[in-house]
């Protein structure tokens, strides 16, 4: 089991690293529900065993939670997600081939759920969640030693536009 876990971790690390332009996760409806149809974006950082990766997360509020995309700065998408706050579930879809492995998706679903809920009280022993005054959120997955940092992008609102 330990060997399997180690192998999984190594695979996660390698795949993340191979997809150098890839992403992490984050949110700022972190701590508060994102109003329906409102869109917000964040820069994200993820570190794993000394390797750091950055990306962008864009999320839109829905009647039951949120949906959005994680991508790198160049726009290459890592995955889409749907967060159902009522059922307490995160679904990941359109996952980039490099990351489309069950063990990676499982870790992502779990970590995204914690980030979306952003409730220190509900975080178990395997995670540590920290909110900062600038609206950033930091999450550490102690089991896999993965650290996420999510910072809201402050813009004039012209960066996200409805599709015509």
């Amino acid at each position, binding site marked *: 089991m330990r060997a399997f876990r180690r192998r999984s971790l190594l695979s996660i690390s390698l795949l993340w*690293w*191979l*997809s*150098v*332009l890839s992403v992490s996760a984050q949110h700022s409806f972190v701590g508060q529900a994102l109003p329906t149809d409102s*869109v917000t*974006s964040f*820069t994200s*950082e993820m*570190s794993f065993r000394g*390797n*750091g*990766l*950055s990306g*962008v997360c*864009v*999320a*839109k509020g829905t009647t039951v939670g949120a*949906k*959005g*995309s994680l*991508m790198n*700065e*160049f*726009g*290459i*998408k890592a995955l*889409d997600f*749907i967060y159902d706050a009522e059922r307490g579930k995160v679904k990941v*879809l*359109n996952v*980039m*081939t*490099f990351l489309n492995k069950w063990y990676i998706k499982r870790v992502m679903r779990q970590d995204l759920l914690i980030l979306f809920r952003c409730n220190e009280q509900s975080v178990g022993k395997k995670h540590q969640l920290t909110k900062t005054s600038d609206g950033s959120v930091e999450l550490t997955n102690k089991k896999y030693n993965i650290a996420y*940092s999510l*910072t809201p*992008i*402050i*813009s004039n609102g*012209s*960066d*996200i*536009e*409805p*599709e015509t």
Partner: protein
Amino acid sequence: MNMKRILLTICLFASVAMTWAQKPVSAAEQKEMIRKVEAAAAKTTSLKSSFEQVKQLSIMNSKMVSKGEMSFRAPDKLRWEYLTPYSYIFILNGGKGLLKSSKSKNVVDVKQSAFFQEIAQIMMSSMTGKCLSDDSRFKVTMYKNGDMWQASLTPLNKTMKKMFSAIKLHIDPVKNIVNAVQMVEVNGDTTTITLSNTKTNESIQEKVFAID
């Protein structure tokens, strides 16, 4: 004629017109167009440009717009910098790559990662149009669309195929340089990068490409 029939007729005409507009040029014409782009690329020692990147986010029915500046010096130096809405710098200099965000900085050996190598290659070769003559990586089909040329590149390489179903270059037929690149992801989402204020063969200081 009822309204349904009128609409059907309009749709039919529109689809015929679109099919005609997207008809590839002849093999001889394609060869000549590529030759012109290659000739312009061969004379290009440097490129400097502003860019606007529009990422289509189909799941949210929205698009994200990022803006920045690009500098390229032949044969293998590139600086790609996002200025809004986030700050991010990507530099390629020989065999090294720098990825710098507001919180982290990573220097990577391009040769150590097949994926990174592909990205580096596509970024530089698509900006100059050199990828049009890269038969080993892409199947190229050229189109004429009004006063623009369009090249549709279908990846042949395994790594690229996993990421993109096509890469489309919009080419200025007068200057024979690329002014927009559209990357079509496997899931259908697109990223379109449009270059503006492009200046060629100007001197660019070495420190622009410094990986420190």
